[in-house]
């Protein structure tokens, strides 16, 4: 545990050297919800049908924003490998007395804390300013979902960040991955009305699983059985991504 705290402390020190960065991370999702969400809310003034119910677009989009924010923090954290590599400190870290798993867990735990604060701000101000009917009783599950989502995406992206040596290549990879994952998912719109090929692709997307779990726990939209299945699938995705990331750190850095 001591090593995990040491890595977390280091992440905290690095993050707090730039308050702009921190501010952006904390308020970006809320800003997204307030600007993009409100725009689409007006466009779909009568609300949208989702999961057998009818909700405002703002309410529907809340889970999408939370999910996107988790993904964003995971991207920033995985991008940190390039910064550390450029500063030479990355390889030195790997000679420190800790396991590769401790290194990865410590690195994401501090950032998971950030994503929880981000979620509190987004949900709280979203409910206060936009009247989103949040299920406050499920808050604990929502925050757990945010943490698991951030960690899952970070571990997934870590393997790529470690194997792709060039940060411009990693940027391109991220742009393509983000684009595909975001639009082939339930982040912006319900899947029911999509063409079969896109709907099927979206159901196979971990971003859909994560978003659906957050949507169910925040506003109660979705079938509980499906959501449970999606939660289990995302946990499996996290476990596999973690194992692959640890293995990459152990064997795939300097081949």
């Amino acid at each position: 545990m001591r090593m995990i705290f040491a890595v977390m402390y280091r992440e905290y020190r690095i993050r707090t050297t730039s308050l702009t960065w921190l501010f952006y991370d904390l308020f970006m999702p809320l800003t997204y919800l307030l600007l993009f969400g409100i725009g689409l809310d007006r466009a779909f003034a009568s609300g949208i049908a989702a999961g057998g119910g009818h909700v405002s677009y703002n309410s529907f989009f809340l889970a999408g924003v939370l999910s996107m924010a988790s993904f964003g923090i995971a991207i920033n954290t995985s991008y940190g490998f390039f910064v550390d590599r450029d500063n030479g400190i990355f390889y030195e870290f790997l000679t420190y007395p800790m396991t590769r798993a401790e290194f990865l867990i410590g690195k994401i735990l501090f950032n998971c804390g950030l994503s929880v604060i981000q979620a509190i701000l987004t949900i709280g101000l979203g409910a206060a300013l936009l009247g989103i009917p949040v299920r406050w009783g499920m808050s604990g599950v929502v925050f757990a979902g945010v943490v698991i989502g951030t960690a899952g995406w970070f571990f997934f992206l870590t393997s790529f960040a470690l194997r792709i040596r060039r940060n411009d290549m990693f940027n391109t990879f991220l742009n393509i991955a983000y684009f595909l994952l975001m639009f082939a998912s339930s982040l912006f719109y319900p899947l029911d009305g999509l063409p079969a090929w896109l709907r099927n692709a979206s159901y196979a997307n971990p971003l859909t699983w994560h978003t659906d779990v957050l949507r169910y726990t925040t506003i109660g939209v979705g079938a509980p059985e499906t959501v449970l299945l999606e939660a289990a699938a995302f946990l499996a995705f996290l476990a596999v991504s973690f194992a692959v990331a640890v293995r990459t750190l152990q064997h795939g850095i300097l081949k």
Partner: protein
Amino acid sequence: MTLAEPAIQVEHLVKVYGERSSNPVRALEGISLTVRRGEIYGLLGQNGAGKTTLLRILTTLTQPTSGTARLLGLDVARQGYEVRKQICAVLQENAVEIFLSVEDNLDTYGRFHSLPRAEIGRRANRVIAQFGLEDHRRQKVIDLSGGLKRRVQVAKVFMVDKPVVFLDEATTGMDPINKRATLDAIREQARQGRTIFLTTHMLDEAEELCDTIAIIDHGRCVAIGDPEKIKSLGSRVVEIRITYASLAPDPLGPLQRFALHRLELKNATIELAVDANEVSPFEVLNVLGTLGPVINLEVTGGSLEDAFIELLGKGSGPGPAPWRDRS
């Protein structure tokens, strides 16, 4: 792990990068060496000789393709975590937290090595003074010069007490005063019983510091031994520099009968180099003594640099390594 075990034992270590690619690179070709506990061991070699690869394997950054490497009895390929508890390393790349201040760099390093907080402060103050960083302690590292960044990086390893210290070109970019402070600190670490494994291009530094030196070339050891032994492996060149109060006409004439490597006359000073295997330096000195009244005489043996250049010149490429001290 027992006290009888060497600090580092490397046997037939091979490392091939890109093994499955069409263009694999063989960085280590079956290297073997033993580092005793408490010694300063220097690894010398040209760029690309395999020094950094060996260091990466020993610090658990990469896995060997075949062969074994043990550190304090621990297998570096299989017991990486246990090995990392026994080491600290200054790698070739500048490794500092550029967005943090000097003292925050030392603080985070101390935490990573499980030092108590009060101890971190005490040791940070000590190394800040030792490496002349007092005026920069609150400055962010990004704002420091390259040499100062290197100083911060090297200062970090002197915060902790690990049995084995790896230093890869640790003094590169340092000014002479800080280089001296670093060398003193390294010696002090060795006196306290720590094993120091260093790679360097500075042959004078290696000669001054190391108990044992290994010269590697193309991933193989071409020579191992103490600095004197290594120097003796080169051709036995003796340099003579003699200054006279006055010289007879044509003073170099009597010296023409010797097969000298170099012969120069500068004002009243004669400089020459002689291979002791071919010509007796004493015979040359006898003749030099007849050329005029002597006011200064310097006789020096071959340097480590001479041996290094000669060994690598002869030892390049595959094949047996004739100079290797196998004792």
